[in-house]
């Protein structure tokens, strides 16, 4: 929040907000509470010459949903207890063995890059994947906000909350890649007010080849030239 008594209306704080939620009124700056995702960037930026930015140590439910999905330094204390917008996914797959050979991990990060979205609209974007009958990752904090994880229906009290981004995670068999691409196109059409970034996770073949990249190209899509690569140096080694 901005202390109106302290604010001198210089406007220096406006550019730091990733979602343009700080507005300059006649004499002071004000945060648009509906657009704000509680990421804390404005508070940490320390750009304000009179230190008018204050950050509430605790936010009530459901407002706290905004902070835990938008501020990387805020844990999901009320739900999974973890950090961030998804899970550790493949970062420690060499020891956890979560992504096994013969399976494909899909991660759909809604609101990224830098746009944000409400949980109400995230529900619309998640619906096509629910119709595929996938199991949403139970340890993912977004899944923990669902009332019905089979249909991707979210709890009513969180639907008006806006977050910088949140991730849907699930596993599929490679034979279902075409269905997933179809669901992505459907979700893309539903994402009229936001964007989403998609990731595909694969356990590397024993010969070093990455599976499913060719299959994706045959469907008319391609992976980016840059990737995250788990080097397999962790121990104890998972049997996958």
């Amino acid at each position, binding site marked *: 929040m901005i202390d109106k008594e302290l604010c001198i209306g210089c406007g220096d704080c406006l550019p730091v907000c990733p979602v343009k939620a700080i507005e300059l009124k006649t004499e002071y700056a004000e945060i648009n509470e509906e657009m704000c995702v509680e990421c804390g960037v404005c508070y940490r930026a320390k750009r304000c010459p009179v230190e008018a930015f204050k950050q509430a140590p605790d936010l009530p439910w459901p407002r706290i949903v905004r902070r835990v999905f938008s501020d990387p330094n805020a844990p999901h204390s009320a739900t999974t207890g973890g950090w961030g917008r998804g899970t550790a996914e493949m970062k420690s797959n060499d020891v956890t063995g979560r992504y096994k050979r013969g399976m494909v991990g899909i991660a759909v990060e809604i609101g990224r890059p830098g746009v944000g979205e409400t949980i109400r609209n995230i529900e619309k974007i998640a619906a096509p994947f629910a119709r595929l009958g996938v199991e949403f990752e139970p340890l993912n904090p977004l899944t923990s906000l669902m009332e019905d994880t089979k249909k991707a229906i979210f709890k009513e009290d969180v639907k008006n909350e806006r977050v910088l981004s949140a991730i849907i995670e699930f596993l599929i068999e490679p034979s279902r890649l075409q269905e997933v691409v179809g669901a992505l196109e459907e979700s893309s059409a539903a994402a009229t007010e936001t964007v989403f970034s998609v990731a595909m996770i694969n356990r590397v073949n024993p010969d070093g080849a990455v599976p499913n990249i060719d299959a*994706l190209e045959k469907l008319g899509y391609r992976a*980016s030239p*840059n990737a995250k690569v788990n080097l*397999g140096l962790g121990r104890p080694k998972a049997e996958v």
Partner: protein
Amino acid sequence: MTHSLHRAGTIEDLGCDYVIIIRAEKGYNQEGSARKCKELLRLFQKHDAVNITGARGTNYKGNVLETSLDSIVEAFKDGNSPYCVFDTKEKLESFLVELKEKDFGLSVVVSGLYDSIRSICDKIGIVPHTTNHSLGVWGNTSLLPDGPVLEITTMCGHGMVSRYLVDDLIEKIRAGSLSIEKAGIELGKPCLCGLFNPKRAEMLLRKLTVDDKKERVNTGVKGWAL
């Protein structure tokens, strides 16, 4: 989460941008990992990383663009993950050679051009375990900023670097009140995880402030679909 993936850019631009994430997993190898992680943070510095940090919550001290490495190292506890960025393939290779020799037993993730990472792995005898490839940005992509601005903002996967801050600093550079080098560092300060590459930001800011706008690169990020 996928905070080091989805960095927009051309092959040329991405060739100077390699992120390292070290992970000690609860229930597997997290106990006593702080000592190894502290050594790794020093190793990042030895190999001339352009940004370093990792701890979270009450242990968070900032990234090296705004605080000292000593304070980051001192605050590190079991369960915290060291992160850094290298701005050349050569630095990445020299780091990985020493990392392999030291054999910390923690999970190591490298983000960057897959072909470059793969060639280094082949050279030093590492077989990658798992990959995570971006399939691009979907939805209403008209909401995204132009190529180089998007390249800068996507270097913080959590979206802490505002596109409006990029615009603001560009104005200051053009007005002569801020150097490109200082702007690159300023842009990296909001990135809590220290994955922002200030050297790459400098290069992109030069394109945005010196080159003719017609020469702006097309990142291709809106169209990974063929």
